[in-house]
């Protein structure tokens, strides 16, 4: 169920009070577990079996790893199981498609049938979360969790099950050891996060999506103005969609006494690609840093190796987002961007003399360009878009003025948040006025059409 639906509101209005009542008892964790599985099973009851299976393999891999001589073996059992699951559900069609293309190139007419597999929602997120538990135990960073229920709840905890943040076992499992004491401040913070996230999703993201979908559905019919504006809108759509979801997830968790990591931190104010990835989908970028980049050697083996490791990490990160070459190219572009900005940041001129605003704009334009690969419906569409951006006149993009106002409003708000005058945004009257306006606007912006969260497809 989506956070911004009435079904979820009813679900939470039942789950939360019962949770508060059960919190001092031993039933609190089972209640969270049951409600999380009901939440996941709402999409498709069969998904629950998959979740139980995956969690079971990881839990017992750790059990068997504990004190064993074959720790690496059990680690690989768990890792391979998760990789196979991802490969099967997420990449089977992609792999088959490429295999068939290679067979055609080789001159054979033999073709594998295209598999028709339903992608379980959020599989990329909960498998990564589960993997982090296994690897952290293997590395000795956390003790073995003896309760299957606690591990299962950690993996399936409903606020972050579908689209993160990808929590680490070292951070979340200890929070589940005993019932959390919930302070009033956490409840108000949770509500603030939830409603802010809901506004970003319902009002801004859903609004921009209508324009973006229209242009990206048929890029050959539009001129460069519309294509550029659609990409510009998409940058904000995906940001508001994903950060909105994360805010809601963090808000819900905070109301229940659990702390989730910050996942977005004004990414479009980044001054370099490294900075961008320390602000965008932080839980994913740090996951890849800790479980791929660092094991590959990180930045400890010279510049070329560092860049090689960066490239591999970003290419895999691209592939994680979707089973398509355009996602791989997207990852590759970000790898290139990181390498270039890292090199630029070595120079005093760039570091000290180029204005911060110029850096921010440059990074934003670069990220904007890469979003074309992320959003394009196919590689052919991507190339078509890029060629038409540079070869057709600007024309009249017919971009909604209201959309532009929303984007500039949010951008300005974020600039102010990191500026010296951020205290203006923290005045009580401003906070109350803004939140009231957001709530009333949401009521009038709820549309009959449903826009699922973008990152659910991953």
């Amino acid at each position, binding site marked *: 169920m989506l956070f911004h639906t009435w079904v979820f509101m009813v679900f939470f209005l039942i789950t939360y009070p019962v949770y508060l009542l059960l919190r001092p008892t031993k039933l609190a964790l089972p209640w969270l577990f049951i409600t999380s599985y009901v939440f996941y099973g709402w999409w498709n009851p069969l998904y629950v079996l998959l979740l139980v299976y995956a969690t079971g393999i990881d839990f017992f891999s750790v059990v068997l790893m504990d004190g064993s001589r074959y720790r690496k073996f059990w680690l690989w059992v768990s890792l391979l199981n998760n990789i196979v699951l991802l490969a099967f559900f997420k990449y089977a069609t992609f792999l088959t498609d490429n295999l068939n293309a290679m067979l055609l190139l080789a001159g054979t007419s033999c073709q594998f049938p295209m598999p028709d597999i339903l992608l379980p929602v959020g599989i990329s997120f909960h498998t990564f979360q589960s993997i982090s538990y296994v690897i952290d135990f293997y590395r000795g960073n956390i003790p073995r969790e003896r309760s299957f229920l606690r591990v299962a709840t950690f993996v399936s905890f409903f606020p972050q099950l579908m689209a993160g943040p990808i929590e680490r076992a070292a951070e979340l499992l200890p929070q589940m050891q005993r019932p959390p004491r919930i302070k009033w401040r956490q409840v*108000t913070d949770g509500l603030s996060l939830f409603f802010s996230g809901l506004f970003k999703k319902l009002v801004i993201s859903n609004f921009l999506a209508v324009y973006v979908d229209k242009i990206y559905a048929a890029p050959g019919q539009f001129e460069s103005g519309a294509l550029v504006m659609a990409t510009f809108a998409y940058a904000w759509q995906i940001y508001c969609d994903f950060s909105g979801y994360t805010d809601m997830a963090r808000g819900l968790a905070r109301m229940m006494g659990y702390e989730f990591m*910050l996942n977005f931190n004004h990414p479009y104010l980044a001054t370099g690609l490294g900075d961008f990835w320390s602000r965008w989908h932080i839980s994913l970028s740090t996951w890849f840093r800790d479980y791929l980049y660092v094991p590959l050697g990180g930045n400890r083996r010279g510049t070329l190796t560092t860049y090689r490791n960066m490239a591999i990490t970003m290419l895999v990160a691209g592939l994680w987002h979707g089973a398509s070459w355009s996602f791989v190219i997207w990852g590759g572009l970000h790898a290139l961007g990181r390498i270039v900005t890292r090199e630029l940041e070595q120079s005093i001129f760039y570091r000290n003399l180029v204005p911060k605003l110029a850096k921010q704009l440059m990074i934003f334009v670069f990220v904007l360009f890469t979003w074309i690969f992320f959003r394009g419906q196919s590689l052919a569409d991507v190339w078509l878009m890029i060629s038409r951006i540079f070869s057709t006149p600007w024309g009249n993009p017919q971009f*909604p003025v209201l959309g532009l106002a929303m984007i500039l409003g949010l951008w300005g708000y974020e600039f102010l948040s990191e500026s010296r005058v951020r205290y203006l945004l923290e005045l009580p009257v401003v906070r109350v006025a803004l939140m009231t306006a957001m709530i009333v606007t949401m009521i009038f912006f709820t549309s009959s059409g449903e826009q699922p969260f973008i990152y659910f497809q991953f």
Partner: protein
Amino acid sequence: MKTVPKNEMLPPVKTTPFGSSAQRLRGKEWLATAVLALLICWGLPRLWPRIEPFTPGPDYRLPYALSSDYFMVRRWYQHAVREYPVVMIGDSVTWGEYVRADETLPACMNRLAPGGRVANLGLGGAYPAALAGLVEYYGNAVTGTKVILHLNPLWMSSPETDLSGDNEARINHPRLLPQFVPLLKPYKAKGYKVWVEEGLSAVIERNTPILQLAEHLRLAYFDSMDIQGWVLQNPAHNPASAITLKLPEATREAKSRPVPWTAGDRKKQVYAWVPLDKSFQFAAFRATVRRLQKRGNRVFVLVGPFNTHMLTEGSARRYADLQQGINAWLNANHIPCHAAAVLPADEYADASHPLAAGYQRLAQALQADPAFQTWLVDKGDLPPKLGSK
């Protein structure tokens, strides 16, 4: 049950940074926000009728584009009950699908008897089950007045139209129907997720005036599009500028081409006719009658006229049984009624909608019915009307 003492509960962990673009309100600020938001949500729907002019003229019927605008339906009901001695509730037969606004049944009745003014509360796309919901959730104003309730037998002609079939049906006014109890089979056919989500949305909306107002604005000022869709078509415009406070005009012309059904192939149809004791639509009709009576209204039922020229012999026989059953129930419950006689074949547009001449004939027949006249003049214990003429 053993509880964990508070001092053993985990203290709040070191909090992570709050958020990037979220407003962080404290308790008192949330209280202020809640009060303000509730005030707006409570006050705006009540204030809105004072801001938005609504002056229905003679022979007014709700614009077809606003058929699903229940905020506006309620408003029209309130106005009609205040200004008219009699109101007529029904589906598109009452509304006048194939005729102009001055040719509908209420309009014809008003011309025949200038003293008795009848308001047209017909709703396009409605049917007995939808009317039951309409009266229950949006018809509170229909109190202490005279109500002609039209029953169109078409809605009992098959399990599909009766909403007692198994297949997913394309239903008008789904938000007026019972969403969960009873569980309608056409809903079940949609799958549980869609059913629950749509059902919850409908139930919440019908109990939340601000959501009804939002829907009214969407239908009346944004061409029935959501704001996103409207802005896409009007990119240079501020959506607020679309709210001109000028309601869509009443539909003066016929919605569908007024061509007699006899101009077609005149093929006889087989209608299954659902038995009355099993009919969901008839049960809804009975509930509507009772609800109206409970609210102190004097109810008169008009049944038909159904186009029996279209029926095969077997279907016509079953229809006659159905009619008898309806009359029996009405008589047993002492509800004054008029079972409309079949009109000439060329005065029908389809199975149940008369053309202009048909409405004229029907109005005359009703006027000449002693039961109707008795009901019309009998003031009984109805409160006096402010706008009675």
